């Protein structure tokens, strides 16, 4: 029991830094929610695999400030994304936008999966036929003996 408590406490302590990085709290809960969602969507350009919400570098802090200012000023989520993309490119978005250029990125895996499934079905059917063919000679042999 004590071990479980200790583990729980440890886990909670380890989670604390997440709060320390971004203490921003916008009074309006709807704006705060949008701010949180946006800062988790935007990539920190210095530590490429972290969002600006999680990154401790100064640039991330500045960009969070920008997002905060824009959210409070009444800009829409799209406008804020556009602002970031205009300066840093599509790469700043963790979820690339659906456009002609990104078409392959979005559809590629689905298409490959479908192609793989079709091929798999064909192979299974071929094998099923072969198994049928195998059965017959044995029966014939059994018959002949």
């Amino acid at each position: 029991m004590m071990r479980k408590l200790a583990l729980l406490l440890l886990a909670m302590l380890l989670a604390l830094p997440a709060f320390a990085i971004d203490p921003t709290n916008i009074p309006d809960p709807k704006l705060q929610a949008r701010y949180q969602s946006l800062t988790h969507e935007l990539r920190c350009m210095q530590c490429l695999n972290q969002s600006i919400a999680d990154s401790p570098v100064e640039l991330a802090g500045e960009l969070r400030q920008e997002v905060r200012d824009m959210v409070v000023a009444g800009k829409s989520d799209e406008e804020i994304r556009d602002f970031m993309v205009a300066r840093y490119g599509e790469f700043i978005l963790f979820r690339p936008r659906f456009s002609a250029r990104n078409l392959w990125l979005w559809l590629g895996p689905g298409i490959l999966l479908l192609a793989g499934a079709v091929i798999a079905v064909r192979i299974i059917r071929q094998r099923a036929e072969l198994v049928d063919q195998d059965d017959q000679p044995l029966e014939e042999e059994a018959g002949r003996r």
Partner: protein
Amino acid sequence: MRNRFIIPLLAFALLVVVLGVGIKRSPDKQVIQSVLIGKPAPQFTLPSLTEPGTNVSSQQLRGKPYVLNVWGTWCQACQMEHPQLMKIRELGQVPLIGLNWRDQDDLALGWLAQLGNPYAHVAVDKQGRTAIDLGVYGAPETFLIDARGIIVHKHIGPLTVEIWKRDFEPLLGARPQAGPT
């Protein structure tokens, strides 16, 4: 027997080609291409570091190409870059404009006094707003902006005379000159 392998082999070959092309064409992920190349440099009007009481603005810089170098005294790589900037300044081809990013005036002035000042003007960006408009994500970064105010090239990381000669110089003559150089 061979027929069964041809289709998967072809599909695999196609995949290799597609992925190979993708990998060859993708820019070095360490250095992400600037999305602002070919676009107008963002407007800025910032206080001057070296001429207190005056401003450095993108408007006033138009009409001739210039180089915008983003730096800060807190930036180790900028310190390494500095002697190279002095050499580039000596080439005398294009004015160097400094963008002092998220720094303190007294530290910045001290730095220039100690290491030398390669800049024709230094604009002070304390909030970092102009840097964000430029899509800067680390110092040093250097932009080449042409006479029309269009960003023609961006270099991320310390600039050297070698890189200058290889990447910046060829672009200097690209725009038709309105009068004698």
